[in-house]
């Protein structure tokens, strides 16, 4: 499996983010390695979301630096991050429920063909591609590729949202914000399996979650945030949920256990 010695694909160093007078993040570090699942946990307002938004180009840090494979990485928008191979699946999934899974997968990035000198949508090809990506990369087969996305189960919708991210060429880092928050036990299990599937394809997966059960089931490492700071990073296999819970609430602050 992946070990802690693997060179990180993304490093974030001394990231600070202020909104007016409020400091949301202060001197936060983050390492992301290919083929691992990194969970970020913490209370509400711990700075998880801000950190993730900086990673995905939505926010720009007030200070600090980000590198990708050792080279400095500057992102001015989410589009920049997608171009660099960093994409996100939001808690709301950002799916247009009335569209088909294929239309959602290719939304904003449609496949076209030229006919009579004009570019039209190639719905047939998008459908085939979507079916292929869902099956080959995520192991998911939908009952119908023609039904609206709203008719899918929570896990299937999750799969469509992930498929959109993995289809874009060279996905290196996938950020998932509370992927299991609204799901029942069965759908949660399916979603966790999806995460494993893409991790096994060498993609780094960053998961924000409130559910320590899920975190311990799926992650390789856990980074704990508290009040805008990193309070620690633990290897899941060498830790317990009790220990992590303690870090979250600030009972036993441990500095950089095994980074």
């Amino acid at each position, binding site marked *: 499996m992946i070990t802690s010695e693997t060179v990180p694909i993304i490093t974030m160093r001394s990231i600070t983010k202020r909104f007016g007078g409020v400091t949301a993040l202060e001197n936060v570090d983050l390492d992301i390695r290919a083929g691992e699942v990194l969970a970020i946990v913490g209370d509400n307002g711990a700075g998880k979301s801000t950190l993730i938004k900086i990673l995905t180009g939505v926010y720009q840090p007030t200070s600090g630096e980000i590198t990708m494979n050792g080279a400095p990485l500057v992102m001015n928008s*989410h*589009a920049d991050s997608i171009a660099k191979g960093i994409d996100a699946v*939001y808690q*709301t*999934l*950002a*799916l*247009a*429920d*009335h*569209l088909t899974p294929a*239309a959602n997968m290719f*939304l*904003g*990035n*449609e496949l076209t063909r030229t006919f009579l000198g004009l570019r*039209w*949508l190639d*719905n047939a090809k998008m459908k085939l591609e979507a079916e292929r990506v869902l*099956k080959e990369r995520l*192991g*998911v*087969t*939908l*009952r*119908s590729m*023609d*039904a*609206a996305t709203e*008719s*899918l*189960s929570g*896990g*299937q919708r999750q*799969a469509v949202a992930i498929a*959109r991210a993995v289809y874009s060429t060279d996905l290196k880092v996938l950020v998932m914000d509370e992927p299991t928050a609204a799901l029942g036990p069965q759908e949660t299990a*399916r979603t966790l*399996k*999806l995460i494993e599937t893409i991790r096994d394809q060498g993609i780094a997966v960053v998961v924000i979650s409130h559910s320590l059960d899920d975190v311990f089931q799926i992650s390789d490492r856990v980074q704990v945030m508290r009040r805008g700071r990193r309070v620690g990073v633990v290897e899941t296999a060498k830790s317990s949920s009790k220990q992590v819970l303690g870090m979250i609430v600030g009972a036993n602050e441990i500095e950089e256990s095994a980074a």
Partner: protein
Amino acid sequence: MSSTSATTPAALNFRERTEGYMSLIGPMVMILAILMVMAVLEPGRYFRLSNFDIILKEAALYMPMAMAMTLVIVTRGIDLSIGSVAALTAIVMGYMVKSWGYPWWLAVAAAISLGALCGFINGMVITRLKVPDLIGTLAMDLVYRGFCLIAVKGIVLSRFPEEIVAIGRGEIPGFLPLPVVIGLVTLAAGWFIYSRTHLGRYAQAIGSNPEAAELTGIPVDTYKVYVYALMGAMAGLAGVMLAGKLNAIQATSAPFFNLHVIAAVVVGGTSLFGGRGSMIGSLSGVLLLAMMINALVTLRMEFFWQSVASGVVIIVSVAFYTWIQRKDRDGKSSLLEMLLTPENRRMMKFLLTIIAILALIFGLGGLMGPPVI
């Protein structure tokens, strides 16, 4: 379930297979109802070729606008200004051919382009000035109507070149009337736009989930402007067709285009909440309204029943679609069981109270005897 297994998925159930055609069921059922009623009451007059010609020509005027309005409503938008835009563009066209000596085809092209400009302005008002579509297009309706009145005052522009009259009511021997052909072509184009172009796809995405559309990098505002410009262009085309149909145009023309077209589109199953639309549904909605008015006239019903009938048709359709969309409608086994929920019992008591109060009031009036003048 089979979401994560690679086994062959279960077959779709009936509801899932027919989902795409649901928008047609509503108007089709009502069209069928009209046909059956007329088959009983006035078969000889209703079912003759000349009458269907009349119905089609009635409907044709609204087809281009229904096409564009479907897209507008799919984006969760609305355009109330189309009647004024149609009048304004037709007036400008009228001046071009009657006073300024332009050839008819240039004037028609100008009318459609001017309509697109009006729609573009509507789009800018909504996206750049952030005025909500309902109030924005209502206000622009006043503006465009004002321009119409400024331009022509009380004058009626009439007697257009025969080509323009043909656009409004021309017959193609052995085929459909020209305006019907124009209407059907625009709807077919609309179907193509809806299902095969970025414009249609993004209109659905914007209406279905505006935040998601924004997040996936769709230039939401730009596409909204495109849709409103298309709406304006189609209103311009309708203006030309109207002017040709009456062979006259004036500032007060087309007062109720907006309500008629929105009704037709909604009756056709396009959701006012965005994301879900149907061009074929809009075609059947337009046909339904034309058939209904024709039937009422054929039956020589009093004018005001047209208003009642239109309202009932809209309520029935929208209620029908809402009912179809409900996921749990199979939950209650019998109709009686559905009616006897605690909430419905309360509503029933409330209704009975209102009726009782009304009865009391009228009863008191009766006790006081006839009015003294």
